[in-house]
Structures are given as structure tokens and as C-alpha cells.
């Protein structure tokens, strides 16, 4: 089972360029048409589950707008199998 991850996209930096959208191997990012940043962009966000915390979106983001988290695998190992 792939590790679980999540991203937080900063409204301050995101310009809605969609490079993260195109790069995400899990295809779980999209621009959020509902929201508008102060600069007038629709920011990116996770629109479904499946983020693995691989960090690829952050690497390609020109605005270093994304913080990527991943579950701590050592923590997972501590949890009994099947949990």
C-alpha cells in the first residue's frame, strides 16, 4: 500500500499555472474553480484522495506554493498489521 500524503497550497503564492496538475502522478490535483486568490487566480488543491506525498508537485511548482506531507512510515510500522 502506497504511503498516504497530502499537500497544502498557499494562496499567497499559487498562480494557478496547473504545472502541478499536469505533473502529479496520481492525478489528484486540480485548480479550485470556487476559490480566487487575492491576485485573482484559482488556486490548486487536492480534489480527491490518493496523494502519496511523493513531492513531485512541489518540485515542479514555480512558486514554491506547495507544502507536502506524508505519513511517517515508521509510525505506520508501529501500528498492528491490518489496522
Amino acid at each position, binding site marked *: 500500500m502506497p504511503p*498516504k*500524503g*497530502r499537500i497544502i497550497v*498557499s494562496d*499567497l*503564492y499559487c*498562480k*494557478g*499555472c*496547473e*504545472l502541478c496538475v*499536469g*505533473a502529479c502522478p496520481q492525478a489528484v490535483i486540480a485548480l479550485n474553480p470556487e476559490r480566487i486568490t487575492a*491576485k485573482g*487566480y484559482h488556486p490548486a488543491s487536492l480534489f480527491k484522495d490518493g496523494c502519496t*506525498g*511523493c*513531492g*513531485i508537485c*512541489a*518540485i*515542479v*511548482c*514555480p*512558486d*514554491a*506554493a*506547495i*507544502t*507536502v*506531507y*506524508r*505519513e*511517517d512510515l515508521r*509510525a*505506520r510500522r508501529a501500528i498492528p498489521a491490518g489496522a
Partner: protein
Amino acid sequence: MDTQEEVIVYARPDSLTKTNTHYCPGCTHGVAHHLIAEVIDEMGLRDRTIGVASVGCSVFAYNYMNFDFVQAPHGRAPAMATGVKRVFPDKVVLTYQGDGDLASIGMAEIVHAAARGENISVFFLNNANYGMTGGQMAPTTLPGQKTTSSPNGRDVETQGYPIRASELLATLDGASYVVRRSLHDPKNIRLAKKAIRTAFEVQLRGLGFSMVELLSTCPTNWEMTPQNSLKWLEEHMIPYYPLGDYKVNPAVAEIKG
């Protein structure tokens, strides 16, 4: 998920300021910025790095990178960096230059900084046009490429051939590390970051001139979406500007190994 059980895979590096850049959405100048900032963070160089910004879209780099900076006249960043470095041999000095800046108006300065083996690191953003002034032809513009000053496509008969700066500088004995990388996909971005780190290593060891050429996009003036720009870069620029190591001094090779 409990944050106790999370690790941070990626966070904005400290060497970037908390400022939204003026770069167009999807412009890979931003990628180069965060890579440099990450490497400086990782190597712990922030408090002894001095950057030299150039004239081009990256003129305000000093607003975005969170360390000391000066700003050079168009093309003269290598000369200015020489001035800084000669006074402070122990600081880490970098220039950040566009292709118009470095390969057109600043050709003499970059060649001579390299020839002198000036112990600085040059980051050279090649986006095949003059972004800042609205997309004119650069020395790096591809044959046939339309720009606002080559409206019928660059005509090599009258407007000449693109300059491959890395290949040219690699002919100089003073140049220790000269490579070309690209910013168009995650894999290449990772390789670019490695090269940036090597460039700083070269400088820290006093091995002389290092330059990382980074193929970059200009969605606005190319009149493409950011995504298509990456594709265009890959399909059109890389064949003309092959990625690779053009000069790696033996001493540098040891670092890498």
C-alpha cells in the same frame, strides 16, 4: 491523519522570501529560484551568499531570494560578481542571468569571467527570447522561431544562428564546471538541482568558474499555456541545446563521484 505521524516532504525553503513573485504563472524562472534556494538551505550557505541579479525578468530576484543581493547592469553581472568575490573570497557569489543578458549584451563579461577562472557560480536561464521586454529575439532564439523582432521567424541568413553558450564557454581553460540542464519535468528538475549543488561545491573548493545553464520556459511570450511550454521546450529546445556536461574538470569529477 494525525500530524504527529507525518513528515514534511517539501516545504518552501528559508532562502526564499515570503513574497509572491512577479513572474507569469507557470514561468520556470520560479523553479530555478526554488532550486537555488533549496541547495543554499541544504548546504547552509544562506548567511554567506551574495547574489548578483541581472536585467531581465529576473531583475527582482533580490526580492525573492532571502540573502544579500546586488543588481547588475544588463549583461554585466559576471563583472560585478568579480568585484564582490575579489573583495570577499570567502563568500559564495552567484549570478542569475537570462539568455539575452548573458549571451547577447554580456558575452564579453561571461567569457572573461570564465577565462579568468573567476570563482563564482553562474545560473543561466535560457528561455530562447527576451522575456522582460516583451519577447524579442535572443541569441538563443531557434532558427525559424517567431518573436516580436523576428516576425517572420528567425532568418539565419540575416539574423544569424543561435549561440550555445555552454559549448562556447567549455572551450576555456578557466571554466571548471559547465553543464546544461532543463526545467521541463520532475526528473530533469532533480538533475538541475544536483548540478546547482555541484556548482556551489566547485566554488566552495575554490575550483573556479562554474555555470549551470537551465532551459526554461516563457509561456507569456511564447504564447502558450505553461504546460504546452514545457512540451515545446522539450521538443524544440533540447534538440538544439543538448543536455549534458560540457566541462567537468577532473577535480570537479571527484566531487561528483
